[in-house]
């Protein structure tokens, strides 16, 4: 396990508190999208296709802080767009760190090295660097040569300066299990704190519509990658979620676990689907027709989805929801066997 003890304790006490209050729907990670603008146009991304005047807009520091307070989740992921293109990103991060939120700033790292001076190392701040594999695979995924090398250099610099750095990896159909395992080795050699991964979601707006994984192929791929995990690999995510990706565990989606706030409001129902926006977090939680989403609902947009933002919170909830869940998690942590 690579998450710092203080973060583990903060998340544990938060989830247990929710359980004790009998709250079945609670947010775990706020997905805060302060802008849609990006300096890449990745083949599998459906997040940045907007007209110019929308791409130029961004949330203010005050809007971000208000959303974080409204939501109350202990962790905040800042994706986008590319958050380092936000003119006030350092102020946003500083404000959230001051509130003792665990912030994951998700970045492609193209601007990371030049912007590092704006940030202060903290146990509350981690740069989550987008790397979809080794050089060949990553540069192909982001549709630009040279990005892997830039990102790796920035990661090394950030680590040297004492920042927490994790990686986030999205896998698509055609990914090589062996190359992915080599990638994990490379990231451990580089010294990152931990790795996160997920299958790509089949965004209807993404340019490449041919390489999204179906459910069975997701399970097969992750089984091949993770069935014999090396002890040195550290993952910055729930081990039960990894078992879920391998097809060893079943979870139902908990879209409220990772609520999403953007310049349009609170996105219904999740980070991936855009079925409209609520004005407040309370309205999102109380008026979204949650029963229309998830695999059981029969919603065709959810049938192949195994993405972290739908199921990581489910895995964490399972851990703290029963003795069995707790024992399962402890077993994986102690033995390293998924």
């Amino acid at each position, binding site marked *: 396990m690579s998450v710092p003890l203080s973060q583990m304790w903060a998340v544990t006490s938060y989830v247990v508190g929710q359980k004790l209050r009998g709250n079945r729907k609670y947010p775990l990670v706020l997905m805060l999208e302060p802008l849609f603008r990006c300096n890449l*146009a990745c*083949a599998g991304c*459906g997040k940045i*296709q*907007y*007209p110019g*005047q*929308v791409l*130029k*807009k961004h949330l203010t520091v005050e809007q971000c802080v208000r959303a974080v307070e409204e939501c109350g989740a202990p962790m905040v992921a800042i994706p986008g767009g590319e958050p380092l293109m936000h003119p006030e990103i350092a102020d946003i991060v500083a404000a959230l760190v001051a509130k003792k939120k665990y912030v994951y700033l998700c970045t492609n790292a193209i601007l990371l090295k030049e912007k590092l001076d704006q940030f202060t190392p903290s146990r509350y701040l981690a740069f989550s660097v987008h790397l979809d594999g*080794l*050089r*060949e695979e990553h540069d*192909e995924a982001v*549709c*630009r040569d040279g990005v*892997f*090398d830039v990102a*790796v250099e920035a990661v090394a610099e950030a680590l040297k300066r004492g920042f927490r750095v994790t990686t986030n990896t999205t896998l698509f159909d055609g990914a090589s299990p062996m190359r992915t395992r*080599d*990638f994990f*080795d*490379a990231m451990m*050699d*580089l010294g990152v704190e931990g790795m996160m991964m997920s299958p790509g979601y089949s965004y209807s*707006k*993404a*340019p*490449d519509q041919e390489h999204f994984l179906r459910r069975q192929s997701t399970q097969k791929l992750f089984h091949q990658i993770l069935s014999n995990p090396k002890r040195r690999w550290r993952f910055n995510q729930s081990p039960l979620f990894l078992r879920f990706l391998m097809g060893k565990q079943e979870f139902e989606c908990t879209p409220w676990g990772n609520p999403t706030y953007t310049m*349009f*409001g609170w996105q219904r129902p999740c980070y991936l689907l855009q079925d*409209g*926006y609520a004005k407040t977090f309370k309205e999102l939680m109380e008026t979204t027709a949650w029963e229309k989403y998830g695999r059981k609902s029969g919603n065709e947009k959810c049938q192949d989805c195994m993405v972290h933002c739908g199921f990581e919170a489910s895995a964490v909830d399972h851990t703290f929801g029963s003795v069995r869940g707790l024992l399962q998690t402890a077993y994986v942590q102690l033995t390293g066997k998924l």
Partner: protein
Amino acid sequence: MSLQGWNPQINQYLSLDEVVEFAFDYRGNTTIVRRDGTEIVGYVCNRDASAAEPYLEYVDEDGDGPFALPYAEISNIRFTGKDTAAGNSWKAWLERKEREKAMAAAPGHGGERGPGPHGA
């Protein structure tokens, strides 16, 4: 298939509600035609057809908004802006990579890829 350039004809086969849904799903600017004949160019970013007074929200051409506009004030929506989800930049990237691969495979070109850091 893109809706770019579509000028819907609202009639018994196509309702305004349906056109608003298409506009909400469209990743480009639209021209919203109001019942008084005036037009607004903007990006439709939200809608609520189940509200007591159904409305959509848009970001105007200057980036201001979102502003709300009741369905009752709208007569039509034209899909006048570029469809930014049409995937053209990705297609251009693919074509360029194909050209590079063909060049590398051509006689006289050393197309071997050397090893990179971390075995890349």
